[in-house]
C-alpha cells in the first residue's frame, strides 16, 4: 500500500516483467480489508499513510492469527531516523528506506516471498 501515485507506478512498472500479481490500496484502513479478502503472499507497506499509518496497520495484521504469517516489507522515508527500529517493533519483517531503488526493492521482495 502506498499513497503516492508515482511510487505505485514505479512499483507496478518494476513488477511488470515478473509473474507477481499486485493489488494496490491507498490507506491503512482499505489495506486491512483488502488483505483479509485477498490473502496476499507479501505486503509492501508504506509507513506514512493517510487515515491509519503503516505501523498501526502492521500491528493489526500481525495481531490477526489468519494473517500473521504474511511477510510485510516496510517502505519508509529516510534511513537514519530510527524508522527501521520502529518498523520492526510494529512487526514488519523487513525494511526498505526511501528512496528505494527499484532494483534493490525487487531483490528484497524475491528474498521475502514465501517459496
Amino acid at each position, binding site marked *: 500500500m502506498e499513497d*503516492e501515485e*508515482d*511510487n505505485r507506478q*514505479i512499483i507496478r*512498472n*518494476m513488477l*511488470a*516483467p515478473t509473474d507477481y500479481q499486485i493489488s494496490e490500496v491507498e490507506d491503512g484502513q482499505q489495506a486491512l480489508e483488502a488483505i483479509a479478502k485477498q490473502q496476499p503472499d507479501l505486503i509492501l507497506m508504506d509507513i*506514512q499513510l493517510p487515515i491509519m499509518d503503516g505501523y498501526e496497520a502492521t500491528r493489526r495484521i500481525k495481531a490477526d492469527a489468519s494473517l500473521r504469517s504474511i511477510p510485510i516489507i516496510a517502505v519508509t*522515508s*529516510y534511513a*537514519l531516523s*530510527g524508522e527501521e527500529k520502529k518498523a520492526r517493533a510494529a512487526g514488519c519483517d523487513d525494511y526498505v528506506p*526511501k*528512496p*528505494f*531503488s*527499484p*532494483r534493490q526493492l525487487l531483490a528484497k521482495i524475491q528474498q521475502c516471498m514465501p517459496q
Partner: protein
Amino acid sequence: MSHELRTPLNAILGYTELMADGAYGEPSEKMFGILKRLEANGRHLLGLINDVLDLSKIEAGQLELELSDYSVQDIAQTVRSTLEPLAADKKLAFKLELASDLPPGHGDGRRLTQVLINLVGNAIKFTDAGEVAIKAEANKGAFHVSVRDTGPGISAADQANLFQEFQQANNAITRKKGGTGLGLAISKRIIEMHGGRIWVESQVGRGSTFAFTLPVHVEQQVEPAWQAHTGNGGRGG
C-alpha cells in the same frame, strides 16, 4: 518538510533507474549514459537535501540523539562493509585497528555510524594510493577513534575552516569529488552532542588523520554552546 522535499526526488530517481534497466524498452547506449548521469546527479541532490535537513534540524535544536547501547566493533564493521567496495575500486587497503578491550558504549550508535561513514568516505574520496585505516581504543572512560589516510594532506589554512558548512564547496572540490560540503559540520555537531570533540591532524603531502573522542557512556545529550548564540541561523566552527 523532509517528506515534501524527498518524495518528488524519489519518483525521479525511481523512474530513472527503471528506464536505465530497460523497463520501458532498451535505451540506446547514448541514452543509457545520460540516464546514468541523471541518476548520479539525483543521488547527489538527495545527499545535499539530507545533509541540509540534518544540519537545520541540529541547529534548530530539534535533533534528539537516540541513546542506547552500541558496540564500536559493530559500527566499524558496518562502516567497513559499506565502504570497502569504494576503497577496493581505488585499490586502497582498508584497515581496522581496534583495541581488543573496547567496552560497550552508550550513545546514538546510528549517528556515530553516520560520522564514521562520513570520515572514512572522505578519506577514500581524497586518497589515490595507499591505505585508509580506522583506529579505536578506550581509556579513562572515553573512546578515541581516528580515521587515517595516505591522501594529499590538508594545509593549515584549509584545516581552520574544514568543519564549517559548505567549506568543501568553497574551494570547488565538491563537484569533482562529489561531496556535499556538509558532512564534517554535521559530524562535528553529532560528536559535540555526545560531549566529545573532533579535530584533524594533517600536513600537506603526509596524509590526514581525523580523530574524535567521546565518553563511553553518554547518559544525556549535550546542548553545545553554539546553540546559545545562534538566533540568526547560527554557525559553529
